[in-house]
């Protein structure tokens, strides 16, 4: 039996003359948290809508492995939090939850008990019989999240789950996602906040202008990216000439950042970390030193540029 819960193969979708998703392929392993990354307009939402069966792909196939059988989307086994949030604001909180769970085939006293348990956990018990419009935006987000997972799905798709959340709620939802994973739920989330995703995801698919530019596990992506960042805090002052000589001693390196007695070098090529530190120590009185892979944000931007793409790095937080 395959370990993948979802296989997306060569999927494309066009809107008029715009190719929103172009020959995208990736797989999601059972029980993992996968991040679908890319700037706004990259094609993430279109890809997710096709996976959910809301939109039909022009070409390509999307196959699920749910309950031991392979096939097209089984909407009852999948939870969905869309980027464009929305519920029935004029209806009561509990009615909203039970209706949406009912459409997933989860009905009866068990569904009600589960919904009330979730509301209790989210400190919303007192609001169960209130109209949704009376709740604050943060509370509404919690209800929306609950609606996506109340029916105990095998796979949950979260489109930009952290957008519009305050830091407290962001942390709350991060913990919740990790808890779902611990319970065996597979999570596919799209985001443009790289740092948040880096914290959560086991694997990633990075999309730009509808095409996959990078994919794999977080470790794999970082290991395969040949650039390293050398962070140094040095004791004595160092003039520009010293820094220039250090850069000359490290072929393929460049100054990424300098502030006072801290500097960051971007080092390309397969030079071992120990050798980088050793070389740097010949020029500077090193107090602290770290060799690390660049953050995802940098990897993504750099990869897009190398593939001849054009990207506004500010779109990625």
């Amino acid at each position, binding site marked *: 039996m395959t370990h993948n819960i979802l296989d997306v193969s060569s999927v494309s979708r066009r809107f008029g003359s715009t190719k929103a998703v172009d020959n995208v392929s990736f797989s999601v392993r059972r029980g993992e948290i996968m991040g679908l990354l890319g700037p706004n307009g990259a094609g993430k939402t279109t890809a997710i809508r096709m996976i959910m069966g809301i939109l039909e792909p022009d070409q390509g196939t999307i196959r699920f492995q749910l309950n031991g059988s392979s096939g097209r989307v089984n*909407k009852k086994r*999948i939870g969905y939090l*869309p980027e464009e949030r*929305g519920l029935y604001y004029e209806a009561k909180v509990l009615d909203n939850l039970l209706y*949406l769970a009912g*459409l997933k085939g989860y009905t009866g006293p068990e569904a009600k008990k589960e919904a009330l348990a979730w509301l209790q956990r989210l400190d919303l018990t007192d609001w169960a019989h209130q109209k949704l419009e009376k709740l604050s935006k943060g509370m509404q987000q919690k209800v929306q999240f609950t609606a996506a997972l109340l029916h105990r799905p095998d796979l949950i798709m979260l489109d930009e789950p952290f957008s519009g959340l305050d830091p407290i709620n962001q942390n709350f939802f991060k913990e919740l996602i990790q808890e779902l994973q611990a319970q065996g739920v597979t999570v596919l989330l799209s985001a443009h906040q790289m740092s948040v995703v880096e914290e959560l995801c086991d694997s990633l698919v990075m999309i730009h202008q509808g095409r996959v530019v990078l994919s794999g596990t977080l470790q794999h992506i970082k290991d395969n990216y040949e650039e390293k960042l050398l962070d140094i805090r040095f004791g004595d002052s160092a003039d520009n000439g010293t820094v220039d000589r250090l850069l000359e001693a490290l072929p393929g390196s460049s100054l990424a950042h300098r502030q006072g007695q801290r500097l960051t070098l971007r080092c390309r090529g397969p030079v071992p970390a120990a050798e980088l530190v050793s070389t740097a120590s010949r020029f500077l009185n090193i107090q602290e030193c770290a060799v690390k892979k660049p953050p995802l944000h940098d990897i993504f931007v750099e990869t897009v540029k190398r593939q001849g793409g054009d990207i506004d790095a500010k779109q990625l937080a």
Partner: protein
Amino acid sequence: MQSNWPNVLRVARWEFSKGARSPMFLFMTILVPAIIAISGGAGFFAERMQSERAVDLAVVDETGSFEDYLQPAFLPDAVRIQTLTRQEEEARALLDAGDIHAYVLVNDDGLRDGRLPLLASDLRRISPNQIRDALRDPVSVYRLDQLGMDSEAVMQAVAPLSMQVQEIRDGEAADLSIGGMLVPMAVAVVLILSALLSGQVLMYGVIREKRNRVVEILLSSVSSLDLLLGKILGVGGLSLLQIGLWVAVGIAVGSRFLALDEIGLNAASLVPSLLFFFFGYFLLASIFAALGAAMKEAEESSQAQGLVVLIPVAPLFVSGMVAANPDALWAVIASHIPPFIPTMVLLRMAVMDVPLWEMATTLTALILSIIAFVYVGARIFESGILQYHRALGLKDMGAVLRRRS
């Protein structure tokens, strides 16, 4: 596209209960029957009060010979002639004392010209028409006698003509069934009314869900076809319940004045009309829902809504021609053109017995067109519903329909 009926019914139930709890629905459901009951009741009581209100009248007969014609047989009960006098002063004194409500001056000039002065203490208390009607026959007979004619013979000769209409059914004469004409016409009107009411609710509901973004959540659980069908059934059921209540109140109020069984209003006469109503409603509702999905804002949809409402209304513009020649070839053809089928057939049913074969072909055409319209509506719904920031144009709709599913 295949339907998941449990989900269709869940959506329908939700739409029904959501709509039934809305203040506007409750308000309209109670208000309209109240208006029907009040206006019907008010008319009934006004008529009764009017007919029971007797007028005490004095006649000042200056001719000296007219009084012979004021025999009780000529006069209705409600007009009581209290006094006959030749002196207007006497009548005025009675009026001032409140013994009579009015008096009328009868003289030769007035009888010749047909203009008799009527004087009253309070004009709101009397009805001049009632008094005029009461005096019409005595004046006519008086004039005929003055001309030396046989008044009895002349009155017989000019008696009004009325037709006693009967239909020959199965070789036997039977009274004309007004219900047979009334039901299809009434159903056509109700169809238009319900299309207007529920179509509007349906369309604005879809637009609101689009604006609320809840539709994407729904589509992650149900197909666009299921959602569309559920909405049509839910909102339609609610609308039918509302109209059913109105009609029930209308019939209850109407039965105070009309013997419904005597005019041929019975369950059997309702069945064919209701079939066309039911399927006709589905046809229009699918168009309204698709329209809502294609629109961005409620404001821009109102004009388009007007156009859709024209579909059932359009045959009414030629209703005179249909009534004059209901089995003309053009009427038969128009009865098979999908958007016009329900109203055209209902109009023709009002004035003729539409042949059974034609009932079958028009009903089949209607059902097939509903399937086609619901399918097309669902395709437009599917594409338009997620276009949050723009309305679908005709070009977009064409592209949607050309896409393979």
